[in-house]
Protein backbone atom coordinates (compact mmCIF):
# COMPACT_ATOMS: atom_id res chain seq x y z
CA UNK A 1 0.00 0.00 0.00
CA UNK A 2 2.99 2.31 0.48
CA UNK A 3 5.71 1.91 -2.13
CA UNK A 4 9.36 2.87 -2.47
CA UNK A 5 8.34 5.96 -4.44
CA UNK A 6 6.04 7.14 -1.63
CA UNK A 7 8.74 6.69 0.99
CA UNK A 8 11.27 8.47 -1.20
CA UNK A 9 8.87 11.36 -1.84
CA UNK A 10 7.94 11.77 1.82
CA UNK A 11 11.55 11.46 2.99
CA UNK A 12 12.45 14.26 0.59
CA UNK A 13 9.65 16.43 1.99
CA UNK A 14 10.95 15.68 5.50
CA UNK A 15 14.58 16.43 4.50
CA UNK A 16 15.78 12.96 5.45
CA UNK A 17 18.45 11.26 3.36
CA UNK A 18 17.64 7.51 3.60
CA UNK A 19 19.86 4.68 2.46
CA UNK A 20 18.30 2.09 0.18
CA UNK A 21 18.06 -0.48 2.97
CA UNK A 22 16.53 2.06 5.34
CA UNK A 23 14.00 2.93 2.67
CA UNK A 24 12.87 -0.63 2.06
CA UNK A 25 12.70 -1.41 5.77
CA UNK A 26 10.69 1.77 6.31
CA UNK A 27 8.34 0.81 3.47
CA UNK A 28 7.62 -2.57 5.04
CA UNK A 29 7.19 -1.25 8.58
CA UNK A 30 5.03 1.69 7.55
CA UNK A 31 2.81 -0.62 5.52
CA UNK A 32 2.13 -2.70 8.63
CA UNK A 33 1.49 0.40 10.74
CA UNK A 34 -0.78 2.02 8.14
CA UNK A 35 -2.70 -1.21 7.76
CA UNK A 36 -3.35 -1.13 11.50
CA UNK A 37 -4.33 2.55 11.35
CA UNK A 38 -6.83 1.77 8.60
CA UNK A 39 -9.19 0.49 11.29
CA UNK A 40 -10.16 4.15 11.75
CA UNK A 41 -11.92 3.99 8.37
CA UNK A 42 -14.61 1.81 9.94
CA UNK A 43 -15.76 4.61 12.24
CA UNK A 44 -18.56 6.93 11.23
CA UNK A 45 -17.21 10.45 11.74
CA UNK A 46 -19.96 12.20 9.78
CA UNK A 47 -20.66 15.56 11.44
CA UNK A 48 -17.99 15.07 14.16
CA UNK A 49 -15.87 18.14 14.86
CA UNK A 50 -12.10 17.56 14.91
CA UNK A 51 -10.14 17.96 18.18
CA UNK A 52 -6.86 19.82 17.86
CA UNK A 53 -6.35 20.35 21.61
CA UNK A 54 -7.84 18.57 24.59
CA UNK A 55 -8.77 21.78 26.37
CA UNK A 56 -10.83 24.52 24.74
CA UNK A 57 -8.16 27.15 24.18
CA UNK A 58 -8.50 29.98 21.70
CA UNK A 59 -6.02 32.75 21.01
CA UNK A 60 -4.17 33.77 24.16
CA UNK A 61 -3.31 37.46 24.02
CA UNK A 62 -0.96 39.57 26.10
CA UNK A 63 -0.03 43.23 26.11
CA UNK A 64 2.59 44.09 23.54
CA UNK A 65 5.19 45.26 26.05
CA UNK A 66 8.92 44.99 25.35
CA UNK A 67 10.70 42.60 27.73
CA UNK A 68 14.23 41.20 27.90
CA UNK A 69 14.85 38.35 25.48
CA UNK A 70 17.64 35.84 24.87
CA UNK A 71 20.96 37.69 24.40
CA UNK A 72 22.38 37.29 20.90
CA UNK A 73 25.55 35.61 22.15
CA UNK A 74 23.45 32.97 23.95
CA UNK A 75 21.35 32.39 20.85
CA UNK A 76 24.49 31.82 18.78
CA UNK A 77 26.36 29.76 21.38
CA UNK A 78 25.12 26.38 20.13
CA UNK A 79 25.35 27.15 16.41
CA UNK A 80 27.53 24.72 14.43
CA UNK A 81 28.91 27.50 12.20
CA UNK A 82 28.36 31.02 13.54
CA UNK A 83 30.01 33.99 11.86
CA UNK A 84 29.88 37.26 13.73
CA UNK A 85 26.20 37.88 14.38
CA UNK A 86 25.04 35.28 11.88
CA UNK A 87 24.33 31.59 11.32
CA UNK A 88 26.31 30.52 8.26
CA UNK A 89 24.74 28.00 5.88
CA UNK A 90 25.97 26.38 2.65
CA UNK A 91 25.49 28.39 -0.50
CA UNK A 92 21.84 28.61 -1.62
CA UNK A 93 22.11 30.83 -4.71
CA UNK A 94 24.22 29.91 -7.76
CA UNK A 95 26.99 32.31 -8.80
Amino acid sequence: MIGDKDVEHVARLARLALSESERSRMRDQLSVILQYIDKLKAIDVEGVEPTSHAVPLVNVMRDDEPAPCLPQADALANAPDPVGEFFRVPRIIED
Partner: protein
Amino acid sequence: MKTDPTRLTIHALIDAYRAGDTTPTAATEAYLARIAAHDEKLGAYLTVTREAALAQAHAADDRYRQGTPRGPLDGTPFAIKDVFCTRGVRTTCGSRILESFVPPYDATVVSRLKDAGAVLLGKANMDEFAMGSSTEHSAFKPTRNPWDLTRVPGGSSGGSAAAVAGDLAVAALGTDTGGSVRQPAAFCGVVGLKPTYGRVSRHGLVAFASSLDHVGPLTRDVQDCALVLEAIAGRDPHDSTSVDTSVPHYAAALTGDVRGLRIGVPREYFTPGMDAEVDGAVREAIAVLEKLGATTEEISLPMTDYGIAVYYIIAPAEASSNLARYDGVKYGLRVSGGKDLIDMVSRTRAAGFGAEVKRRIVLGTYALSAGYYDAYYGRAQKVRTLVRRDFEQAFARVDVIVAPTTPSVAFRHGEKEDPLSMYLNDVFTVGADLAGVPGISVRCGFTSAGLPIGLQVIGRAFDEPRVLRVAHAYEQATTWLDKRPQL
Protein backbone atom coordinates in the same frame (compact mmCIF):
# COMPACT_ATOMS: atom_id res chain seq x y z
CA MET B 1 19.21 7.34 63.21
CA LYS B 2 21.04 6.69 60.98
CA THR B 3 18.50 5.72 58.36
CA ASP B 4 19.92 5.63 54.87
CA PRO B 5 18.61 8.91 53.37
CA THR B 6 18.34 7.33 49.90
CA ARG B 7 15.59 5.08 51.23
CA LEU B 8 13.28 7.89 52.30
CA THR B 9 10.40 9.60 50.54
CA ILE B 10 10.48 13.37 50.02
CA HIS B 11 8.27 13.99 53.03
CA ALA B 12 10.29 11.66 55.28
CA LEU B 13 13.51 13.27 54.08
CA ILE B 14 12.16 16.75 54.88
CA ASP B 15 11.17 15.51 58.36
CA ALA B 16 14.70 14.15 58.82
CA TYR B 17 16.22 17.49 57.73
CA ARG B 18 13.99 19.38 60.14
CA ALA B 19 14.82 16.99 62.98
CA GLY B 20 18.52 17.34 62.24
CA ASP B 21 18.89 13.61 61.54
CA THR B 22 20.49 14.26 58.20
CA THR B 23 21.24 17.19 55.89
CA PRO B 24 20.70 17.98 52.21
CA THR B 25 24.44 17.61 51.63
CA ALA B 26 24.59 14.22 53.36
CA ALA B 27 21.57 13.01 51.37
CA THR B 28 22.99 14.35 48.10
CA GLU B 29 26.35 12.71 48.77
CA ALA B 30 24.58 9.43 49.54
CA TYR B 31 22.68 9.61 46.25
CA LEU B 32 25.83 10.50 44.30
CA ALA B 33 27.57 7.52 45.92
CA ARG B 34 24.72 5.21 44.90
CA ILE B 35 24.80 6.58 41.36
CA ALA B 36 28.57 5.95 41.23
CA ALA B 37 28.08 2.42 42.53
CA HIS B 38 25.02 1.30 40.56
CA ASP B 39 24.33 3.43 37.53
CA GLU B 40 26.79 1.63 35.31
CA LYS B 41 24.49 -1.39 35.37
CA LEU B 42 21.22 0.59 35.51
CA GLY B 43 21.93 3.30 32.92
CA ALA B 44 19.41 5.71 34.44
CA TYR B 45 21.48 8.85 33.95
CA LEU B 46 22.95 10.46 30.83
CA THR B 47 24.61 13.29 32.75
CA VAL B 48 25.37 13.58 36.47
CA THR B 49 25.83 17.16 37.70
CA ARG B 50 27.82 16.41 40.81
CA GLU B 51 29.33 19.83 41.53
CA ALA B 52 26.13 21.79 40.91
CA ALA B 53 24.15 19.32 43.02
CA LEU B 54 26.52 19.69 45.96
CA ALA B 55 26.43 23.49 45.67
CA GLN B 56 22.60 23.41 45.71
CA ALA B 57 22.69 21.04 48.70
CA HIS B 58 25.09 23.31 50.64
CA ALA B 59 22.75 26.25 50.05
CA ALA B 60 19.85 24.15 51.37
CA ASP B 61 21.92 23.17 54.42
CA ASP B 62 22.33 26.86 55.19
CA ARG B 63 18.61 27.49 54.93
CA TYR B 64 17.80 24.67 57.35
CA ARG B 65 20.53 25.87 59.73
CA GLN B 66 19.05 29.34 59.69
CA GLY B 67 15.54 27.99 60.15
CA THR B 68 14.37 29.29 56.78
CA PRO B 69 13.80 26.29 54.50
CA ARG B 70 11.78 27.05 51.40
CA GLY B 71 9.08 24.44 51.75
CA PRO B 72 8.33 20.79 51.21
CA LEU B 73 10.99 20.11 48.54
CA ASP B 74 13.94 22.03 49.94
CA GLY B 75 17.15 20.03 49.65
CA THR B 76 15.56 16.94 48.03
CA PRO B 77 17.62 15.30 45.24
CA PHE B 78 15.84 14.95 41.87
CA ALA B 79 16.57 13.44 38.47
CA ILE B 80 15.33 15.39 35.45
CA LYS B 81 14.42 13.62 32.21
CA ASP B 82 16.85 14.78 29.54
CA VAL B 83 13.96 16.27 27.55
CA PHE B 84 13.90 19.39 29.79
CA CYS B 85 16.23 22.27 29.06
CA THR B 86 18.66 22.93 31.87
CA ARG B 87 20.70 26.12 31.73
CA GLY B 88 24.38 25.32 31.29
CA VAL B 89 23.78 21.55 31.50
CA ARG B 90 23.85 19.42 28.34
CA THR B 91 20.35 18.40 27.19
CA THR B 92 20.39 15.62 24.60
CA CYS B 93 16.78 14.38 24.48
CA GLY B 94 18.42 10.97 24.04
CA SER B 95 19.52 11.96 20.53
CA ARG B 96 22.81 12.30 18.65
CA ILE B 97 21.42 15.39 16.99
CA LEU B 98 21.47 17.20 20.36
CA GLU B 99 24.49 15.36 21.77
CA SER B 100 26.37 18.56 22.63
CA PHE B 101 23.46 20.97 23.05
CA VAL B 102 23.79 23.20 26.14
CA PRO B 103 20.58 25.20 26.67
CA PRO B 104 20.81 28.90 27.48
CA TYR B 105 17.78 28.73 29.80
CA ASP B 106 15.92 26.44 32.21
CA ALA B 107 12.54 24.89 31.44
CA THR B 108 9.88 26.51 33.62
CA VAL B 109 9.38 23.30 35.62
CA VAL B 110 13.14 23.09 36.24
CA SER B 111 13.31 26.67 37.49
CA ARG B 112 10.26 26.03 39.68
CA LEU B 113 11.97 23.01 41.24
CA LYS B 114 15.14 25.05 41.77
CA ASP B 115 13.12 27.87 43.35
CA ALA B 116 11.59 25.28 45.69
CA GLY B 117 15.14 24.35 46.76
CA ALA B 118 15.33 20.97 45.03
CA VAL B 119 18.79 19.56 44.26
CA LEU B 120 19.25 18.42 40.65
CA LEU B 121 21.41 15.28 40.52
CA GLY B 122 21.45 14.99 36.74
CA LYS B 123 19.65 14.23 33.52
CA ALA B 124 17.78 10.95 33.10
CA ASN B 125 17.97 8.63 30.10
CA MET B 126 15.02 8.35 27.73
CA ASP B 127 13.89 7.04 24.37
CA GLU B 128 15.12 9.44 21.69
CA PHE B 129 12.79 12.46 21.54
CA ALA B 130 10.50 10.57 23.96
CA MET B 131 9.50 8.17 21.17
CA GLY B 132 9.36 4.70 22.64
CA SER B 133 8.10 2.55 25.48
CA SER B 134 11.28 0.83 26.64
CA THR B 135 14.19 3.34 26.78
CA GLU B 136 15.92 1.01 24.32
CA HIS B 137 15.67 3.79 21.73
CA SER B 138 18.06 6.13 23.55
CA ALA B 139 20.92 6.94 21.17
CA PHE B 140 23.40 6.49 24.02
CA LYS B 141 22.52 3.40 26.06
CA PRO B 142 19.55 1.39 27.29
CA THR B 143 18.24 1.75 30.84
CA ARG B 144 17.58 -1.42 32.82
CA ASN B 145 14.75 -2.22 35.20
CA PRO B 146 15.94 -2.23 38.84
CA TRP B 147 13.63 -5.18 39.62
CA ASP B 148 15.22 -7.33 36.88
CA LEU B 149 18.16 -6.05 34.88
CA THR B 150 17.26 -8.24 31.90
CA ARG B 151 14.04 -6.26 31.50
CA VAL B 152 13.19 -2.78 30.27
CA PRO B 153 12.14 -0.01 32.66
CA GLY B 154 9.43 1.12 30.24
CA GLY B 155 9.61 4.40 28.46
CA SER B 156 10.04 6.94 27.33
CA SER B 157 10.74 8.26 30.87
CA GLY B 158 12.58 5.01 31.70
CA GLY B 159 15.65 6.67 33.20
CA SER B 160 13.46 8.75 35.51
CA ALA B 161 11.45 5.72 36.67
CA ALA B 162 14.53 3.51 37.13
CA ALA B 163 16.31 6.25 39.12
CA VAL B 164 13.40 6.58 41.55
CA ALA B 165 12.84 2.81 41.85
CA GLY B 166 16.55 2.08 42.24
CA ASP B 167 17.07 4.77 44.92
CA LEU B 168 19.25 6.88 42.62
CA ALA B 169 16.95 9.92 43.09
CA VAL B 170 14.12 10.65 45.52
CA ALA B 171 11.87 11.81 42.69
CA ALA B 172 12.05 12.71 39.01
CA LEU B 173 10.35 14.66 36.29
CA GLY B 174 9.16 12.91 33.17
CA THR B 175 6.88 13.54 30.22
CA ASP B 176 3.83 11.63 29.04
CA THR B 177 2.62 11.88 25.42
CA GLY B 178 1.11 8.40 25.02
CA GLY B 179 1.89 6.93 28.44
CA SER B 180 5.55 7.80 28.94
CA VAL B 181 5.22 8.63 32.65
CA ARG B 182 2.59 6.09 33.71
CA GLN B 183 3.91 3.08 31.79
CA PRO B 184 7.50 3.25 33.15
CA ALA B 185 6.05 4.03 36.60
CA ALA B 186 4.06 0.78 36.35
CA PHE B 187 7.05 -1.21 35.05
CA CYS B 188 9.32 0.09 37.82
CA GLY B 189 6.72 0.08 40.62
CA VAL B 190 6.81 3.81 41.37
CA VAL B 191 4.12 6.49 41.34
CA GLY B 192 3.74 8.37 38.05
CA LEU B 193 1.22 11.11 37.35
CA LYS B 194 0.17 12.62 34.04
CA PRO B 195 -1.67 15.80 35.00
CA THR B 196 -4.45 17.50 33.03
CA TYR B 197 -3.42 19.08 29.73
CA GLY B 198 -2.58 22.70 30.55
CA ARG B 199 -1.97 22.08 34.25
CA VAL B 200 1.84 22.22 33.99
CA SER B 201 3.95 24.47 31.75
CA ARG B 202 5.84 22.91 28.84
CA HIS B 203 8.12 25.91 28.25
CA GLY B 204 11.65 24.57 27.82
CA LEU B 205 10.45 21.02 27.15
CA VAL B 206 11.85 19.70 23.86
CA ALA B 207 8.63 19.38 21.86
CA PHE B 208 7.46 16.00 20.52
CA ALA B 209 3.68 16.20 19.93
CA SER B 210 2.44 19.51 21.25
CA SER B 211 -1.25 18.66 21.62
CA LEU B 212 -0.33 15.57 23.64
CA ASP B 213 2.87 16.39 25.58
CA HIS B 214 2.38 16.53 29.36
CA VAL B 215 4.91 17.03 32.19
CA GLY B 216 4.53 14.80 35.24
CA PRO B 217 6.28 13.65 38.42
CA LEU B 218 7.63 10.17 39.22
CA THR B 219 7.87 9.56 42.95
CA ARG B 220 8.07 6.90 45.68
CA ASP B 221 4.58 7.50 47.05
CA VAL B 222 1.43 9.50 46.37
CA GLN B 223 2.11 12.16 48.99
CA ASP B 224 5.42 12.98 47.27
CA CYS B 225 3.58 13.14 43.97
CA ALA B 226 1.16 15.71 45.41
CA LEU B 227 4.05 17.81 46.72
CA VAL B 228 5.91 17.83 43.39
CA LEU B 229 2.77 18.59 41.38
CA GLU B 230 1.96 21.56 43.57
CA ALA B 231 5.48 22.94 43.02
CA ILE B 232 5.43 22.64 39.22
CA ALA B 233 1.76 23.38 38.35
CA GLY B 234 0.26 26.67 37.33
CA ARG B 235 0.04 29.24 34.57
CA ASP B 236 3.25 30.25 32.82
CA PRO B 237 3.28 33.31 30.56
CA HIS B 238 5.84 31.47 28.39
CA ASP B 239 3.39 28.65 27.58
CA SER B 240 0.12 29.84 26.08
CA THR B 241 -1.40 26.36 26.57
CA SER B 242 -0.90 26.50 30.34
CA VAL B 243 -4.24 27.25 31.92
CA ASP B 244 -4.87 30.05 34.40
CA THR B 245 -6.59 27.91 37.04
CA SER B 246 -5.58 28.17 40.69
CA VAL B 247 -3.28 25.43 42.01
CA PRO B 248 -4.82 23.59 44.97
CA HIS B 249 -2.90 22.34 47.97
CA TYR B 250 -2.84 18.79 46.64
CA ALA B 251 -1.47 17.16 49.80
CA ALA B 252 -4.56 18.38 51.65
CA ALA B 253 -6.68 16.18 49.36
CA LEU B 254 -5.04 13.03 50.75
CA THR B 255 -7.64 12.35 53.42
CA GLY B 256 -7.80 8.59 52.96
CA ASP B 257 -11.56 8.91 52.68
CA VAL B 258 -13.12 7.44 49.54
CA ARG B 259 -16.50 6.58 51.05
CA GLY B 260 -19.33 7.09 48.60
CA LEU B 261 -16.98 7.74 45.72
CA ARG B 262 -18.24 6.30 42.43
CA ILE B 263 -15.58 4.31 40.61
CA GLY B 264 -15.99 3.25 36.99
CA VAL B 265 -14.33 0.06 35.78
CA PRO B 266 -14.08 0.14 31.97
CA ARG B 267 -14.77 -3.25 30.45
CA GLU B 268 -12.51 -2.49 27.46
CA TYR B 269 -9.50 -2.26 29.80
CA PHE B 270 -9.76 -5.94 30.72
CA THR B 271 -8.96 -7.67 27.48
CA PRO B 272 -8.65 -11.39 26.84
CA GLY B 273 -5.02 -11.00 25.72
CA MET B 274 -3.77 -9.35 28.87
CA ASP B 275 -1.49 -10.85 31.51
CA ALA B 276 -3.62 -12.86 33.97
CA GLU B 277 -1.54 -11.72 36.94
CA VAL B 278 -2.12 -8.06 35.98
CA ASP B 279 -5.84 -8.70 35.61
CA GLY B 280 -5.99 -10.39 39.00
CA ALA B 281 -3.97 -7.74 40.84
CA VAL B 282 -6.08 -4.90 39.44
CA ARG B 283 -9.34 -6.65 40.32
CA GLU B 284 -8.05 -7.18 43.87
CA ALA B 285 -7.14 -3.49 44.05
CA ILE B 286 -10.69 -2.59 43.03
CA ALA B 287 -11.96 -4.83 45.84
CA VAL B 288 -9.72 -2.93 48.29
CA LEU B 289 -11.28 0.37 47.21
CA GLU B 290 -14.76 -1.13 47.64
CA LYS B 291 -13.82 -2.22 51.14
CA LEU B 292 -12.79 1.37 51.85
CA GLY B 293 -16.32 2.47 51.03
CA ALA B 294 -16.20 3.35 47.33
CA THR B 295 -18.86 2.02 45.02
CA THR B 296 -17.88 0.50 41.70
CA GLU B 297 -19.75 -0.02 38.48
CA GLU B 298 -18.80 -1.34 35.09
CA ILE B 299 -18.59 1.34 32.42
CA SER B 300 -17.72 1.35 28.74
CA LEU B 301 -15.15 3.40 26.84
CA PRO B 302 -16.03 2.05 23.40
CA MET B 303 -13.30 3.93 21.50
CA THR B 304 -10.48 2.36 23.55
CA ASP B 305 -9.59 0.01 20.72
CA TYR B 306 -8.99 2.96 18.36
CA GLY B 307 -6.78 5.04 20.67
CA ILE B 308 -3.46 3.70 19.40
CA ALA B 309 -4.44 4.23 15.76
CA VAL B 310 -5.48 7.84 16.47
CA TYR B 311 -2.30 8.42 18.45
CA TYR B 312 -0.01 7.04 15.72
CA ILE B 313 -1.38 9.57 13.27
CA ILE B 314 -1.57 12.65 15.48
CA ALA B 315 1.68 12.21 17.42
CA PRO B 316 3.93 11.51 14.39
CA ALA B 317 2.23 14.30 12.41
CA GLU B 318 2.96 16.82 15.14
CA ALA B 319 6.45 15.36 15.63
CA SER B 320 7.28 15.71 11.94
CA SER B 321 6.49 19.40 12.24
CA ASN B 322 8.21 19.96 15.62
CA LEU B 323 11.37 18.11 14.57
CA ALA B 324 11.73 20.19 11.39
CA ARG B 325 13.75 22.60 13.52
CA TYR B 326 16.75 20.23 13.60
CA ASP B 327 18.38 21.53 10.45
CA GLY B 328 22.04 21.84 11.42
CA VAL B 329 21.86 25.64 11.41
CA LYS B 330 20.89 27.10 14.78
CA TYR B 331 22.03 24.39 17.20
CA GLY B 332 22.78 20.69 17.32
CA LEU B 333 24.64 18.47 14.92
CA ARG B 334 25.68 19.56 11.43
CA VAL B 335 27.07 17.20 8.80
CA SER B 336 29.05 19.34 6.38
CA GLY B 337 30.16 18.61 2.84
CA GLY B 338 26.81 18.52 1.09
CA LYS B 339 26.37 20.22 -2.26
CA ASP B 340 23.85 22.76 -1.04
CA LEU B 341 21.66 23.73 1.92
CA ILE B 342 19.01 21.04 1.41
CA ASP B 343 21.69 18.39 1.02
CA MET B 344 23.37 19.52 4.26
CA VAL B 345 20.05 19.46 6.13
CA SER B 346 19.11 16.02 4.78
CA ARG B 347 22.51 14.50 5.64
CA THR B 348 22.48 16.09 9.10
CA ARG B 349 19.08 14.64 9.89
CA ALA B 350 20.03 11.25 8.46
CA ALA B 351 23.08 11.09 10.74
CA GLY B 352 21.48 12.68 13.80
CA PHE B 353 18.17 10.82 14.15
CA GLY B 354 17.75 7.17 15.11
CA ALA B 355 15.54 4.63 13.34
CA GLU B 356 12.40 5.12 15.46
CA VAL B 357 12.52 8.91 15.11
CA LYS B 358 12.99 8.63 11.33
CA ARG B 359 10.08 6.19 11.13
CA ARG B 360 7.78 8.61 12.93
CA ILE B 361 8.92 11.62 10.92
CA VAL B 362 8.20 9.77 7.67
CA LEU B 363 4.87 8.44 8.97
CA GLY B 364 3.82 11.89 10.18
CA THR B 365 4.91 13.62 6.99
CA TYR B 366 3.00 11.01 4.98
CA ALA B 367 -0.17 11.54 7.07
CA LEU B 368 0.05 15.30 6.47
CA SER B 369 1.03 15.21 2.80
CA ALA B 370 -1.16 16.29 -0.08
CA GLY B 371 -3.85 13.75 -0.86
CA TYR B 372 -3.64 11.96 2.49
CA TYR B 373 -4.34 14.75 4.97
CA ASP B 374 -8.13 14.23 5.20
CA ALA B 375 -7.92 10.45 5.13
CA TYR B 376 -5.42 10.27 7.99
CA TYR B 377 -4.86 13.43 10.03
CA GLY B 378 -8.34 14.88 9.56
CA ARG B 379 -10.03 11.59 10.38
CA ALA B 380 -7.79 10.95 13.40
CA GLN B 381 -8.69 14.37 14.84
CA LYS B 382 -12.38 13.52 14.52
CA VAL B 383 -11.97 10.14 16.17
CA ARG B 384 -10.06 11.96 18.91
CA THR B 385 -13.27 13.90 19.57
CA LEU B 386 -15.07 10.58 20.02
CA VAL B 387 -12.39 9.41 22.47
CA ARG B 388 -12.92 12.59 24.49
CA ARG B 389 -16.70 12.02 24.45
CA ASP B 390 -16.16 8.53 25.86
CA PHE B 391 -14.50 10.04 28.90
CA GLU B 392 -17.05 12.85 29.21
CA GLN B 393 -19.90 10.37 29.18
CA ALA B 394 -18.16 8.14 31.71
CA PHE B 395 -17.49 11.05 34.06
CA ALA B 396 -21.15 11.99 33.98
CA ARG B 397 -21.77 8.74 35.84
CA VAL B 398 -18.61 8.11 37.89
CA ASP B 399 -16.04 10.22 39.77
CA VAL B 400 -12.92 8.32 38.71
CA ILE B 401 -12.00 5.44 36.44
CA VAL B 402 -9.81 2.61 37.75
CA ALA B 403 -7.99 0.22 35.40
CA PRO B 404 -4.64 -1.43 34.71
CA THR B 405 -1.88 0.95 33.56
CA THR B 406 -0.51 -1.58 31.07
CA PRO B 407 -1.73 -4.94 29.77
CA SER B 408 1.51 -6.65 30.84
CA VAL B 409 4.50 -6.10 33.11
CA ALA B 410 8.05 -5.12 32.11
CA PHE B 411 9.17 -7.05 29.04
CA ARG B 412 12.69 -8.23 28.21
CA HIS B 413 15.26 -6.15 26.34
CA GLY B 414 14.91 -6.84 22.64
CA GLU B 415 11.57 -8.59 23.07
CA LYS B 416 9.55 -6.06 21.07
CA GLU B 417 11.59 -5.55 17.92
CA ASP B 418 8.52 -4.97 15.77
CA PRO B 419 7.40 -1.31 16.09
CA LEU B 420 3.67 -2.04 16.13
CA SER B 421 3.90 -4.50 19.03
CA MET B 422 5.81 -1.83 20.99
CA TYR B 423 3.12 0.73 20.17
CA LEU B 424 0.31 -1.53 21.38
CA ASN B 425 1.81 -1.47 24.88
CA ASP B 426 0.26 2.01 25.31
CA VAL B 427 -3.32 0.82 24.73
CA PHE B 428 -4.52 1.73 28.26
CA THR B 429 -2.56 4.97 28.61
CA VAL B 430 -3.11 6.88 25.33
CA GLY B 431 -6.78 7.54 26.09
CA ALA B 432 -6.02 9.97 28.92
CA ASP B 433 -3.46 11.76 26.70
CA LEU B 434 -5.90 12.11 23.82
CA ALA B 435 -8.65 13.35 26.17
CA GLY B 436 -6.24 15.51 28.23
CA VAL B 437 -7.53 14.13 31.53
CA PRO B 438 -5.29 13.29 34.52
CA GLY B 439 -4.10 9.73 35.22
CA ILE B 440 -1.83 8.21 37.84
CA SER B 441 -0.13 4.83 38.15
CA VAL B 442 0.53 3.27 41.55
CA ARG B 443 1.96 -0.08 42.52
CA CYS B 444 -0.73 -2.71 43.12
CA GLY B 445 1.20 -5.95 43.46
CA PHE B 446 3.82 -8.19 41.92
CA THR B 447 3.84 -11.06 39.50
CA SER B 448 5.13 -14.44 40.62
CA ALA B 449 8.41 -13.43 38.95
CA GLY B 450 8.63 -10.42 41.28
CA LEU B 451 7.79 -7.70 38.76
CA PRO B 452 5.63 -4.73 39.84
CA ILE B 453 2.10 -4.22 38.50
CA GLY B 454 0.52 -0.79 37.96
CA LEU B 455 -2.96 0.38 38.90
CA GLN B 456 -4.24 3.39 37.00
CA VAL B 457 -6.66 6.00 38.33
CA ILE B 458 -8.07 8.45 35.77
CA GLY B 459 -10.12 11.52 36.67
CA ARG B 460 -11.94 14.51 35.23
CA ALA B 461 -9.94 17.42 33.84
CA PHE B 462 -8.32 19.38 36.71
CA ASP B 463 -9.59 16.88 39.27
CA GLU B 464 -6.08 15.82 40.33
CA PRO B 465 -7.10 16.18 44.01
CA ARG B 466 -9.57 13.30 43.70
CA VAL B 467 -7.23 11.19 41.55
CA LEU B 468 -4.50 11.60 44.15
CA ARG B 469 -6.91 10.90 47.01
CA VAL B 470 -8.02 7.57 45.54
CA ALA B 471 -4.44 6.52 44.76
CA HIS B 472 -3.30 7.52 48.25
CA ALA B 473 -6.18 5.77 50.02
CA TYR B 474 -5.34 2.58 48.12
CA GLU B 475 -1.62 2.92 48.86
CA GLN B 476 -2.27 3.43 52.58
CA ALA B 477 -4.57 0.40 52.75
CA THR B 478 -1.94 -1.93 51.27
CA THR B 479 1.68 -2.84 52.00
CA TRP B 480 3.14 -3.08 48.48
CA LEU B 481 5.57 -0.21 49.05
CA ASP B 482 7.45 -2.21 51.69
CA LYS B 483 9.20 -4.20 48.98
CA ARG B 484 12.22 -2.71 47.19
CA PRO B 485 14.52 -3.94 44.44
CA GLN B 486 18.02 -5.22 45.29
CA LEU B 487 20.70 -3.74 43.06
